[in-house]
């Protein structure tokens, strides 16, 4: 029998806070992060002087807004003076990675209260410039130099999934239609607009076979959570969520290094580890926030995490199994597609969205009897993945 030598404490999400996601020309990066973190600390009923460390998920602040050294830059504006303030970058999984490292610091007993924020300010740059900056999450000496953008990488993944499993453009589009329907009901979503299947299919081509409706949004926004040991949480309030399992994994950055691009090994292994830590399986999950940077990514993640059979993610989505009221509601927030994708904020925002559902606070998007929620945050074309399983207090 394996002997576990390290005693890990159970950790709770005590507070959550999010800004609206959208295009906010009058807001700077720091003010967004400060707003989200203050909301999370206020929700946790923990004042800033009680916090022992600050973790920040941010992908490309230096490129988007020309500011480095972001963690103490934001931390001091929150009143954190003297405590460790650290920025973590793992492409679109920067927020998830910051959350994972913050969890480790509490689970291991190093700290009793930490705040994790994720932020990105993207809309002050032109779309071609944003495309160029995002491409930096790929292998710039290889695929990037050849002209790969992120839509292009996921388009090539989609082509292969269609070739091997018969996935159709209609099935991809059904993910966008569903996520827009959910986003339309989310007051903090970037795009609160219903779209039809016909509209999604007729969208402007971005990288064949993906249209503009298969792609997530370029957004500004921030999200934050406060973590404490689970046995301390009831001292503050009863609306916390317990982290039942969390795992971070990695894989090649270059898409052309992978043997089979129709699945993400990092997602499969992070899911397996998180399920094992929680002692549950996909059938126990009430709802999930999956990283739908592109519609195909949600379909593949639904397969990799065991919600759908391999190759069946397309028909599964098209049949309504992932809608609110379906077998496993996916992206009730609207997902990256409709809620928006301020890259560094995304992974932390997903945790906030799950906790909101577990508290029963999701309004008309509420999933009945939700007890266990799963969040999956993906970096690049699958080189980083963080999967978190949360349980209602």
């Amino acid at each position, binding site marked *: 029998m394996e002997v576990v030598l390290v005693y890990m404490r159970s950790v709770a999400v005590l507070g959550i806070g999010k800004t609206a996601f959208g295009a906010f020309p009058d807001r700077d990066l720091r003010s967004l992060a400060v707003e989200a973190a203050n909301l999370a600390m206020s929700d946790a009923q923990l004042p800033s002087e009680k916090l022992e460390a600050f973790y920040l998920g941010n992908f490309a602040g230096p490129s988007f807004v020309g500011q480095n050294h972001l963690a103490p830059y934001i931390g001091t504006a929150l009143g954190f003076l003297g405590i460790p303030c650290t920025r973590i970058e793992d492409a679109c999984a920067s927020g998830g990675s910051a959350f994972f490292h913050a969890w480790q610091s509490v689970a291991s007993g190093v700290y009793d209260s930490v705040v994790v924020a994720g932020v990105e300010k993207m809309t002050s740059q032109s*779309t*071609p410039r944003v495309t*160029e900056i995002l491409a930096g999450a790929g292998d710039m000496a290889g695929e990037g130099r*050849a002209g790969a*953008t992120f839509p292009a990488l996921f388009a090539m993944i989609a*082509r292969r999934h269609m070739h091997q499993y018969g996935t159709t453009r209609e099935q991809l589009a059904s993910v966008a239609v569903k996520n827009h329907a959910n986003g339309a009901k989310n007051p903090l979503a970037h795009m609160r607009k219903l779209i039809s299947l016909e509209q999604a299919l007729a969208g402007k081509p971005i990288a064949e*076979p993906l249209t503009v409706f298969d792609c997530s949004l370029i957004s500004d926004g921030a999200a934050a959570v406060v973590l404490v040991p689970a046995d301390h949480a009831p001292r503050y309030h009863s609306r916390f969520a317990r982290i039942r399992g969390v795992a971070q994994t990695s894989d090649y950055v270059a898409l*052309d290094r992978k043997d089979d691009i129709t699945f993400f090994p990092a997602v499969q292994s992070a899911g397996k580890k998180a399920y094992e830590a929680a002692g549950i399986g996909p059938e126990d999950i009430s709802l999930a926030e999956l990283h739908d940077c592109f519609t195909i990514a949600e379909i593949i993640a639904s397969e990799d995490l065991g919600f759908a059979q391999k190759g069946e993610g397309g028909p599964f989505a098209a049949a309504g199994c992932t809608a609110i009221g379906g077998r496993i509601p996916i992206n009730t927030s609207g997902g990256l597609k409709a809620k928006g994708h301020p890259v560094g904020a995304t992974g932390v925002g997903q945790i906030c969205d799950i906790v909101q559902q577990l508290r029963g606070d999701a309004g008309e998007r509420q999933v009945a009897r939700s007890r266990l929620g799963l969040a999956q945050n993906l970096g690049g074309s699958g080189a980083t993945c963080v999967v978190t399983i949360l349980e209602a207090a």
Partner: protein
Amino acid sequence: MAVETEALDLTEESPVRNEAVVYTETVVFAPPERYAADAPYQLAIVELPSGERTTVRILGKTPSERVSIGDRVLFVSEEDGVRFYRKSTVPAEEQTGNTPRPLI
């Protein structure tokens, strides 16, 4: 998992050395800033005779020059680290893109 190919002659003088098979592809309509002038362009991950895969550009602007999964392509040139290939079955008179654009 390898793309299925016939046994290849990989000796120095064999023209097959310049061949590759398309593993996946896309046509990019929304390029990054530095390739704005090239769009739309076709990008592919191709499998080389060695079994290695790499990301390349496919030359040509017309539908008959576009490639699909499983198509054979021929190496044309390498410019600043970017490899350019063309569809192996396009007749010479239909080829529009034999000279790669100079890269920035």
